[in-house]
């Protein structure tokens, strides 16, 4: 059973019952400052009707990418690019992907305390080398299975830094969910 749905139904039914019973009670003439109980339902409904017409008005506007177009080199976002539909990845998708990588490392290498074997700067240089060769790389390829937590974190920080510097573009395939980095 859909609890939300059932709950909404019960709230509506009881509100209606309450309104009905309040209407049945004889009202004293002087006590007119009391709001009409029916308004509790009517108000949002009227508001809703207003918003419905407002929504219709919105669709009648000259919609961008529908009725009117702009010259925009970055417009690939608005275009269907064939089979490989990709979306720009936000911070949360990156963090999700990072968590998955962390889960994959062997548990015994998690507790080792070692000095940073590599700096973020050096890692960026390494990744740039890979990019120079291939142009693009998937998120998972950047993390080798046997690397320890420290290395993984350094790699992740390197990616964030590169995004910040505008060196790479991070996109995700809509269907496969694979995150791919492109060298700009």
């Amino acid at each position, binding site marked *: 059973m859909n609890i939300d749905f059932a709950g909404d139904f019960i709230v509506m039914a009881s509100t209606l019952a309450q309104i009905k019973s309040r209407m049945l009670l004889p009202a004293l003439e002087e006590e007119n400052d009391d709001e009409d109980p029916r308004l509790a339902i009517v108000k949002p409904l009227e*508001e809703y009707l207003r918003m419905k017409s*407002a929504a219709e008005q*919105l669709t009648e506007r000259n919609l961008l990418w529908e009725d009117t177009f702009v010259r925009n080199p970055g417009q690939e976002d608005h275009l269907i690019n064939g089979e490989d539909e990709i979306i720009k990845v936000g911070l949360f998708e990156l963090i999700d992907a990072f968590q998955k990588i962390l889960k994959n490392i062997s548990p015994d290498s998690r507790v080792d305390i070692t000095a940073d074997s590599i700096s973020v700067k050096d890692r960026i240089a390494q990744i740039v080398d890979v990019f120079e060769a291939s142009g693009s790389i998937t998120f998972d390829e950047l993390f080798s299975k046997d690397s320890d937590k420290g290395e993984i974190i350094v790699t992740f920080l390197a990616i964030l830094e590169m995004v910040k510097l505008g060196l790479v573009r991070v996109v995700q395939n809509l269907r496969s969910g694979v995150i791919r980095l492109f060298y700009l």
Partner: protein
Amino acid sequence: MEDIKNIIESFLFVAEEPLTIDRIKSILKQAERNEIQSALIELSEEYEARKGGFLLREVAGGYQIRTRLEYREWIKLLIQPKSLRLSKAALETLAIIAYKQPVIRSDIEYIRGVDCGGILRMLLERKLIRVLGRKEIPGRPLIYATTKQFLEIFDLKDLKDLPTLEEIEALESESPENSTRETSMIETFEKGKNT
């Protein structure tokens, strides 16, 4: 500057998003604001007189060259834009946010009478709405508002450019088929009571 109009036109051609007067001013430091403004108006009038393929629109607080409505079907043969594809429910939610912003989820659901968590997420992903912050009431709900992208997509100069609800109501009552809507909801209730 004599060629200010041409410089601004070249900016408009290259710019990726609506160009604000402030942005133009930050580059053309010696130009006055009203100089820029009148150059823009002049350009717009030139495009209007020429009746070519595009015109100058004031959107999202800036100026942008946009194609004329008449040629949309041709352009769609050239490029395949992703259509807006907003469902009725999504549009209504968007309208509520546009008119009531800053607004919290429970206010939207009060008007629509149904859950709209999924729709809000979708609108956020499409960057039509954004989170302004949290309201300092129990549960600290998120506050929603529309984005610049919303203005760009719906061809709006700014939020004040939205038709007022009174204007929409006037439009509605003009068309005869909708005149039945004028009967107040209370009357509908009265009718229901007698049956």
